[in-house]
């Protein structure tokens, strides 16, 4: 293992003082909206996903407030249905599927493998425009009356019975799918073709592996859901007999087609976060990651197996019992690669030199939430208990732990980790640390009571429960937690934006992390590197002892700011 400190994984010539970086290279709106720079596109994505996250979050707040009383507080049933649909559709299609890959992946992936940009820069820009168009259509459908079909759009309710803006919303989601496909294609092509000399497959950071696996799912899965949604639109508009038995269709067919994409889509949301966590844990443990190959291959295993488990959403639909058995078995096996990752991250911390900076606290929080989310998945993979728990609040809690906990904690960990690289500024790390703890506690207070609600039998998507008032205490707890969580999401907006104006210059590598992205300037120049990097060492060759003093010095700089 190399003990070189200055150029730990690549031979990069010392960079001259930057005259311009990607942020200062053009200040006009036009220079942003027509940019082909993956870093600028990442910033465009960051702004858009943050907007939709806040919007989806405020719908979540309305849902939680409404449910503090068994008879509802503010909304009529119809309005409530539109609110939870808007919450789900916006969060899933416009935030969770996009946040980590399109923001952090876009920004970091080319830097990490020593590329000047993604393989198809213009397609990358196109993907943001497709995303924006999708977001606009969904937004119009929500504002102009709303959609009440639920984000899963189960037929025949969505195709024949709902008289809300289902088609418009589906067109939005359909277009958003192309954004996802183009991003996936771009990642795969980039990883295959654009790696710097010496960047072999097994020298690639695990973040890149995770995004490679994600790209495969995006590319193979998204077309299926796109076709499915198109079919719903056709059935709605032209009464084509596809999903509705009144017309001669099959309502359960929709579920097969929808989940064939939407289960793997969960991994589009969390696999990129796994990549972030692998980077953060190893960087702040100052230790080479434990079981590199196992983490890398577990990403591919998840991507592969993720396509074979969709039927576990349908144990209580009318799918055959024997089909269910096969899906259940594969689902159980899918728990294994996820477990591999968690165990290897834990082992990475063993004998490390651990710095509890905010990205690391978010990463530890991620592990806590993901453990709970993953393990509660066993109750649902298990066909027996699934019969009782499916479609109750147990499901709501489980997928929020996995998808939201996984994605948001991963996103926040990565955003804090690479913020100095993206902006060139240091943020207030002390506030960020406390905020990470608030988010973790708020999240658990919000969603843990929902496991109990589900076990008690409270169905999801219920507006009222006056006939079952015993559910109220847990709903009140959940709403309290949501309030705490809301604070935890708003505070970072302030200290991160403040850092843009008042933050200290970050320097190239404030965390003392290894990886090509830390060897260029912060913010990086448009071309990413002043000299083409050549990689000569393994990734993550940290030396916890030798680099300790160096890291402490960096910490003093960070601390001085706090």
């Amino acid at each position, binding site marked *: 293992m190399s003990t070189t400190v200055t150029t730990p994984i690549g031979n990069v010539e010392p960079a001259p003082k930057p005259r311009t970086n990607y942020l200062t290279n053009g200040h006009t709106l036009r220079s942003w909206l027509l940019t082909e720079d993956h870093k600028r596109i990442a910033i465009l994505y960051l702004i858009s996903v943050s907007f939709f996250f806040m919007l989806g979050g405020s719908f979540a707040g309305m849902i939680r407030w409404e449910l503090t009383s068994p008879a509802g507080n503010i909304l009529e049933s119809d309005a409530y249905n539109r609110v939870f649909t808007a919450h789900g559709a916006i969060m899933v299609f416009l935030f969770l599927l996009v946040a980590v890959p399109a923001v952090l992946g876009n920004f970091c992936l080319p830097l990490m493998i020593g590329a000047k940009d993604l393989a198809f820069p213009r397609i990358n820009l196109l993907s943001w425009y497709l995303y924006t168009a999708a977001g606009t259509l969904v937004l119009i459908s929500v504002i102009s009356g709303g959609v009440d079909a639920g984000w899963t759009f189960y037929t025949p309710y969505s195709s024949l019975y709902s008289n809300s803006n289902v088609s418009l919303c589906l067109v939005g989601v359909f277009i958003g799918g192309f954004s996802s496909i183009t991003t996936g294609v771009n990642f795969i092509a980039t990883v295959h073709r654009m790696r710097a000399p010496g960047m072999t497959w097994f020298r690639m950071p695990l973040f890149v592996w995770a995004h490679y696996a994600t790209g495969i799912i995006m590319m193979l899965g998204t077309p299926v859901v796109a076709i499915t949604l198109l079919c719903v639109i056709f059935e709605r508009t032209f009464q084509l007999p596809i999903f509705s038995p009144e017309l001669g269709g099959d309502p359960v067919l929709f579920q097969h087609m929808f989940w064939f994409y939407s289960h793997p889509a969960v991994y589009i949301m969390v696999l990129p976060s796994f990549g972030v966590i692998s980077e953060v844990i190893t960087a702040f443990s100052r230790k080479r990651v434990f079981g590199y190959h196992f983490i890398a291959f577990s990403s591919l295993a998840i991507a592969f197996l993720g396509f074979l488990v969709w039927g576990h959403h349908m144990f209580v639909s009318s799918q055959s019992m024997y089909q269910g058995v096969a899906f259940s078995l594969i689902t159980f096996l899918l728990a*294994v690669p996820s*477990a591999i990752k968690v165990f290897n991250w834990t082992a990475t*911390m063993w004998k490390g030199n651990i710095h509890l900076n905010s990205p690391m606290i978010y990463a530890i929080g991620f*592990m806590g939430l993901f453990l709970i989310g993953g393990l509660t998945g066993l109750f649902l993979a298990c066909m027996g208990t699934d019969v009782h728990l*499916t*479609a109750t609040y147990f499901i709501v809690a489980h997928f929020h732990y996995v998808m939201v906990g996984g994605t948001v904690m991963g996103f926040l960990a990565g955003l804090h980790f690479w913020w100095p690289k993206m902006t060139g500024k240091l943020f207030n790390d002390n506030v960020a640390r406390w905020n990470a703890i608030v988010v973790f506690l708020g999240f658990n207070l919000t969603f843990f009571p929902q496991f109990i609600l589900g076990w008690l*039998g409270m169905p999801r998507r219920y507006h009222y429960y006056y006939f079952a008032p015993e559910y109220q205490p847990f709903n009140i707890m959940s709403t309290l937690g949501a309030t705490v969580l809301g604070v935890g999401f708003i505070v970072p907006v302030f200290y991160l934006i403040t850092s843009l104006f008042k933050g200290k210059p970050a320097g190239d590598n404030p965390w003392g992390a290894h990886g090509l992205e830390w060897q260029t300037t912060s913010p990086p120049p448009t071309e990413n590197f002043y000299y083409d990097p050549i990689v000569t060492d393994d990734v993550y060759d940290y030396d916890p002892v030798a680099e300790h003093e160096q890291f402490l010095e960096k910490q003093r700089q960070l601390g001085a700011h706090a």
Partner: protein
Amino acid sequence: MNLANFPFAPPAASNFASEMDTLFYSIFGLSVFFAVVTFFFVVFYAFRYRAGSSADRSSPVYENMKMEVIWIVVPTILAIIFFGWGAKVYADVRIPPKDAKEIYVVGKQWMWHIQHPNGVRENNTLHVPIDTDIKLTMISQDVIHAFYIPAFRVQFMVVPGRYTQMWFRPTQIGTYHLFCNMYCGAQHSEMGGSVIVMSKKDYAEWLANNGSMRQNLTPAQAGEKLFTKIGCANCHGPVDMPPRAPSLAGLYGKTREMTNGQKLLADETYIREAILRPSEAVLKGYDNTMPAYDKQISEDDIMSLIAFIKAGAMPSLPASNLAAGSAGTEAQVKGKAGLNANALEYNAERADATPTERGSSHAVGAMAAEKVDQKR
């Protein structure tokens, strides 16, 4: 707030509950174990190996095949064990016993229609006998619903265009939540009700009574039952029996003279008054003997009684009450038979009509449609 308002587990009221709960708590135990152990190490390492601590960091390990194999093989074995157990429970839930009693369920926006084997119907309430295997055969008339009884640990989707089945054996007498657990539109959260587990005797009685639910009977049928039940039939027979009680057959629409000389038209209001406050106006030729029913019966019941009286036929008096010979016996028999014939005809019409005859656009099966929407 007492503890009953703060439950941590649903009631357990079916044959599946105990096995399902054992399975649930086993997975729960396993999960707690793995979560606690793993997160303990995460937090412990974060503290033990925090920057600057004097912990031993010599000879760190980066790859260890033995550890990897252990934490791949152990979870895999556990996964297969719990898969098998879960699949076994699932098979039990899915395969109903051959001799299970079959009850039909139709889901529609936003109500459950349930029909018992002898034709008794009810909405949003399912009465079942304890310790009896019950098989539900279910279909939806519009969108997908899901029939969910948390206390029984069973649910299954109710799909338009195909029949689905679920079964259970209730083990505890009581009333339990019934939910629709698949989002189905505006009133999704109100599409539920109760499952009432009765003793076998009570259930048999309930079933023989044509169900206690009013909507299974025409108002006249309900009125006839009530007429006997609250004692009207003890005095009001098919023929007049002065001075005890007049017959009510053919009463409706006639003008009658009272003891005080008033002439009153026997319309709805008159009948209602005569039931609630009979002594206010006593029919000429009869004694003031009838008890007042004011505050004794509901408006609903009065409506039924009026409907029954309007229908015209009166049940015969109980033998012990027959004071005046056998006059009118023929009429009694005819009247009684006529009424029963009506009821039979009514049931037969509902049972035999094909969906098309009932004007259904959703011709999905004999259970598929109701002639009249019974919106709540």
